[in-house]
């Protein structure tokens, strides 16, 4: 039975470091929730508190509607996949898989059956007699997954399980974990710092920064409606282009103006009565090439071309703007480094944030 997990005003401090601040979040039964954020954002700490490997400073955590604060990990019906895999080096693959079942006094014939099932599911049948040191990185990762699966826990906790794999294997395993979760219909809480992993794997994503939950949402909604500047730049690669400027009255409506640019803003984008400093954001795919004399164009000089085959990323230096503006253009676009071009944003896809708080307007 998959279980729900909820955080209620959870705080965790290590001495002076406030690792997790007032975290409140619901994770539904059978959901694949990804905790994502830069290193040190508190995502692993949050996961370890669910596992029972870390005590809460305040607040409470519920698993299947029961408060589990202070409960030993073994009494929470969870399984965890560690970043280092943490396989028992002196045990065979079989014994690694069977260890948790043996600790729970599972009958021998059932252990045999469940280990065999799990091994078959993960393609480990031929490796059962081997020791972890005789396995490749990918195989060890599978054993670590198997050790979690074989117990059929209500909640899977995964702490960056793919970070030790090479890029190719990571891509493949990513899909396999998602498929496995669909098959097993278990609740998964998955920690990663990789936003691509987060986007492709999660049914919902929770973005953390400096211990504070920024936003929890489906991947697409997170991408289309980031709650603040942090989420806007953290999710999506290359990151969203941000322009600091001001909202001013322009005839009937409002306009955004900054050094060298002035755009009319769609009605409804800015809350009534809001004028002053704002940050305007456009994703790279919402910029297109335009004539250099286009009044809606942002002029600049091409500094870098990154052809990916399917797309062409063009970095442009814009006067009065820090950092490069990146546009995603069709691969057949002909531009040269050093050339002066203009980029026109799709104004209907504009994101507007308050300059002081960074929150979405």
């Amino acid at each position, binding site marked *: 039975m998959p279980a729900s997990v909820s955080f209620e005003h959870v705080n965790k401090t290590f001495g002076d470091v406030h690792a997790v601040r007032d975290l409140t979040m619901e994770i539904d039964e059978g959901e694949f929730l990804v905790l994502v954020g830069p290193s040190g954002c508190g995502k692993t700490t949050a996961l370890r508190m669910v*596992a*029972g*490997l870390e005590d809460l400073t305040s607040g409470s955590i519920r698993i299947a509607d029961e408060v589990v604060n202070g409960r*030993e*990990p*073994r009494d929470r019906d*969870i*399984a*965890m996949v*560690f970043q*280092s895999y*943490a*396989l*028992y*080096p*002196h045990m065979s693959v079989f014994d690694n898989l069977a*260890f*948790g079942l043996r*600790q*729970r006094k599972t009958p021998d014939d059932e252990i045999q059956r469940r280990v065999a099932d799990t091994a078959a599911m993960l393609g480990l049948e031929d490796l059962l007699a081997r020791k972890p*040191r005789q396995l490749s990185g990918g195989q060890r990762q599978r054993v670590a997954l198997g*050790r979690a699966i074989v*117990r059929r826990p209500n909640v899977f906790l995964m702490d960056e399980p793919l970070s030790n794999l090479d890029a190719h294997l990571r891509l493949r395993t990513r899909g396999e974990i998602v498929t496995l979760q669909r098959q097993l219909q278990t609740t998964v809480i998955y920690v990663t710092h990789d936003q691509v992993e987060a986007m492709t794997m999660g049914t919902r994503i929770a973005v953390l920064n400096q211990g504070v939950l920024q936003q929890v949402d489906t991947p697409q909604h997170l991408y289309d409606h980031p709650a603040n500047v942090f989420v806007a730049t953290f999710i999506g690669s290359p990151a969203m282009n941000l322009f600091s400027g001001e909202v001013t009255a322009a005839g009937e409506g409002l306009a955004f103006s900054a050094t060298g640019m002035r755009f009319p803003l769609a009605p409804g984008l800015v809350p009534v009565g809001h004028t002053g400093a704002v940050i305007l954001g456009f994703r790279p795919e919402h910029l297109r090439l335009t004539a250099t004399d286009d009044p809606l164009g942002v002029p600049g000089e091409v500094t870098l071309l990154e052809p990916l085959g399917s797309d062409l990323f063009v970095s442009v230096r814009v006067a009065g703007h820090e950092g490069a503006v990146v546009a995603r253009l069709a691969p057949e676009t002909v531009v040269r480094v050093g050339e002066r071009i203009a980029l026109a944003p799709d104004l209907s896809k504009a994101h507007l944030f308050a300059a002081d708080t960074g929150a979405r307007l």
Partner: protein
Amino acid sequence: MNSARRTGDRHALRDYALFAAFVAPNLLLLLLFVYRPLVQGVWLSFFSWDLISPDWEWVGLDNYREYLTDSASHYILRNTLIFSVGTVIGSMSLGLGLALLLNLPLRGREVVRTILFTPYVISGAAIGVVWLFIFDPRLGLLAALLAKVGLPSPDWFNDPNWAMPMVIIAYVWKNLGYTVVVFLAGLQSIPGDLYEAARVDGAGSWSRLRHVTLPMLSPVTLFLLVTNTLSSVQAFDMIRVMTQGGPLEATKTMNYQLYEEGFVRFHVGTASTIATLLFLLLLATTLLQLRTMERRVHYS
């Protein structure tokens, strides 16, 4: 291709010359001061000699025959065995227990670690003298403590049944620090996430000790077993100070007997015979330990 091989040969030759240049001084010293006496010792065991006389009398295997058929040497062999097994088991089990305690995040453990290690670097003779005072049945600390709980002190020095335990206790105390420090190093090299994985897997503290700690410590345990056995058989200074092998030879080990035969009674042939037998015994024991334990040791 031919020239390539010749260049390769030249390289190998140069490497070998370099290797020899680095190793030779050490090897020379070892040959001179370790292997030459070893061989000479074996050679001497075929003679009867009193350390002074210019004549060495060839006796063949007589020394061995005499030693191996003498019931006194059987008793001494038994003593050696009891002393070694007692001290090895004593210092390894106590050492592991203390190391486990010192591995806990307790206040003041650095101080305790230092206190525990100190006896190991103090001379055995000095420690022997201190323990003489502690064990003294009339004036000793131990007698006073036993009196507090209403027990009489055993007559450690004169009772053949108590003398051996006394020497073993003192010896274990002296060498405990070494065992603790090595075990502690082993414990600290066990990755913490193995314990976390075991906790998630449902293992309690006893089960974590049995299934994680002990197997992960197995290389260190084998190392300590071998080194502790070797050093226990060579114990001399404490026995010399505390009991001189007495009472009634109850604490006389082969190593002590070797000293007595060679340098008290000047039976150099017999002493060399004992040395040779001791060497063979240790060699066999070490090989046996390595062979039987190796299968159960997990090097990660």
